[in-house]
């Protein structure tokens, strides 16, 4: 609604006032909420592409479905994940710029939680390299990281009372277990499509809701 010359004047119609209120509230929510597409899609595509490459190179039963260089899947996945981390970090902090208070502190703490917990888990898993076979290691890293992602999404849902984020976390945790039961190779495929796909859907749903 454009500002008018008679801003001192009240609106005559109460319904119009309510519309104005709704409009301004929605406007600030949109302004303060990071674009869900930019928050979810980089991760969704990182999983889809990175874990998809893992499935093709390190398939079920040790099969090589596509003869990619053996270093390529890990490099693809790490590059995609680091890019996704940078994108969401920048987008998230841009939307909380010039806002201070409990909400931005919560956001900063949640962001740090991701970085620190992933670092911690990588550190633990890193100690095990050499003691397990390659396919077991892939399952350990894949299964562990996806379990942590699911847990952090559920925690995010609890913090912001965000049902869709919580459901995404539950879904991610469940398909992770299914993937681990199915075994190395299958885990990559199930998580790439089920987990990556779910994040792409979550970004789309969040964006449609905000519009």
């Amino acid at each position, binding site marked *: 609604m*454009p500002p008018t010359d008679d801003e001192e004047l009240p*609106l005559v119609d109460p319904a119009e006032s309510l519309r*104005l209120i709704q409009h301004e509230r929605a406007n600030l929510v949109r*302004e303060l909420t990071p674009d869900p597409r930019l928050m979810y899609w980089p991760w969704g595509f990182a999983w889809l592409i990175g874990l998809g490459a893992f499935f093709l190179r390190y398939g079920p039963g040790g099969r090589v479905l596509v003869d990619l260089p053996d270093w390529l899947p890990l490099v693809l996945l790490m590059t995609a994940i680091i890019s996704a981390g940078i994108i969401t970090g920048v987008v998230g902090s841009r939307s909380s710029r010039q806002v201070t208070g409990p909400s931005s502190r919560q956001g900063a703490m949640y962001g740090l939680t991701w970085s620190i917990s992933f670092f911690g888990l990588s550190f633990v898993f890193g100690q095990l390299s050499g003691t397990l076979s390659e396919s077991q290691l892939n399952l350990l890293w894949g299964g562990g990281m996806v379990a942590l992602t699911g847990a952090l999404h559920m925690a995010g849902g609890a913090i912001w009372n965000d049902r869709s984020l919580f459901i995404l976390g539950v879904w991610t945790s469940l398909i992770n277990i299914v993937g681990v039961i199915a075994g190395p190779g299958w885990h990559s495929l199930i998580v790439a499509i089920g987990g990556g796909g779910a994040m792409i859907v979550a970004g789309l749903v969040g964006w449609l809701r905000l519009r």
Partner: protein
Amino acid sequence: MTDGARPALTDGGAIPELDPVIHAQARLRVVSALSVMREGDRIAFPRLQETLRMTAGNLSVHLRKLEDAGYVEVTKTHHGRTPTTLVQLTRRGRLAFEDYTAALHALINPKEEP
């Protein structure tokens, strides 16, 4: 409620009075936008101005009126070396806004009045 500055909803199905402080369109827009923010969260003046598409002068005038009524708290602080002006709705402002929207609903549909 006997808050003085805040007219309460009148009993007996009469037409509720509307708070003159936020009845003005521009101030209603400011208060509506600020009402989205959680208690304790503050937004910097330039970002609020950008979101509301108001001129700085215009927004200042309306913020002062809202501040005088105790509806808005304006804090001047420093972010590094740059001075920043932070704005937030006070608890009183939030209540006034809730009363105001309740009054609007009551005007549209008198049966909804508590």
